[in-house]
């Protein structure tokens, strides 16, 4: 005789899985929560730890959701769940920023996905560049304590795990050019335009 498995209603298991994931994040059983956030520069993947926002990735630039999460699983922990509610503050601040209503971000940051030492110092200095201002790669090298290391400063900014909120788009080439950008130059231009500067 045959014993076919019970039928489920469409979406029943997925709904239950979503509720379980939210509970895992709320009760602190999952160390890491993520959500996707739509924005004028494309869909973003935001990843949060108990310490704060650890990753804000351009979904299309960084190889897609799976690749972004695989990298976080490998470097931090595989205990990752999708929990949009845990990222409400990040989503709201980003929405306000893209609407031109927010100049500074208040979300806590977790630096654990940036390398220790010089690279992290460059990124932390970058986080202090005010809205609407720009700096050069040389400025950043000096601020991080190695005046001649402007090339390495560019590398550090290129590895920025939290772009937009750590505003590496505000760092330009000394020659007056845009320099590079982790999300592509078009996005750098868009972000600078939002901040009222520089339309080239």
């Amino acid at each position: 005789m045959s014993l076919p498995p019970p039928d489920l209603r469409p979406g029943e298991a997925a709904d239950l899985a979503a509720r379980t994931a939210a509970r895992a994040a709320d009760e602190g059983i999952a160390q890491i929560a993520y959500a996707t956030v739509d924005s004028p520069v494309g869909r973003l993947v935001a990843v949060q730890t108990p310490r704060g926002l650890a990753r804000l990735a351009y979904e299309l630039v960084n190889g897609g959701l799976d690749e972004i999460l695989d990298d976080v699983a490998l470097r931090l922990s595989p205990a990752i769940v999708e929990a949009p509610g845990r990222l409400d503050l990040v989503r709201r601040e980003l929405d306000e920023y893209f609407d031109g209503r927010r100049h500074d971000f208040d979300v806590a940051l977790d630096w654990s996905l940036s390398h220790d030492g010089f690279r992290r110092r460059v990124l932390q200095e970058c986080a202090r560049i005010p809205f609407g201002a720009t700096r050069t790669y040389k400025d950043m090298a000096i601020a991080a304590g190695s005046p001649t290391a402007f090339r390495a400063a560019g590398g550090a900014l290129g590895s920025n795990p939290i772009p937009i909120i750590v505003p590496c788009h505000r760092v330009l080439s000394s020659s007056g050019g845009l320099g590079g950008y982790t999300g592509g130059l078009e996005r750098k231009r868009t972000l600078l335009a939002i901040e009222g500067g520089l339309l080239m």
Partner: protein
Amino acid sequence: MTKPTARLPPFQRFLDVHCGDVLRYLVASVGRHDADDAFQETFLSALRAYPRLPADANLRAWVLTIAHRKAIDVHRARGRNPVPVAEIHDGAQPPASPAAADESSHSDHWERVRMLPTRQREVLTLRFAADLSHADIATALGCTEEAARRAAADGLKNLRKEIADVAATA
């Protein structure tokens, strides 16, 4: 930098891949009413242990084994006096059309499985609702593969007999 060749997927992907199988198994083994809670307990327990799991673990058999343990908890909590099938189906039931009888038969046969002796119930749900091999079932139950096969055969025999009895009295 060298990356390990095998590594655990992010938990969310593991949850997405196995949620349907786990829910089907739990609906069969504890019934719809208790399946939701047991499902959540299963995946929360799994998550607690997940970061320490070897990357080459058989994730499907592992999570279904956890679900099996949660099902045991449900059956224990109900005490040793499960609600008899008769109580659910006695009384004035509207005469079912042949099509309706066909549709309801899936849930009916799992209700009957839930009335079987513990080991037979466990083996039949793990085999037919969770689609585990007899070897994985033996591991989950801590018995030999031969014992699992025997319990499955006994369970099916009892089930057939019961269905024949029901048909005879109908």
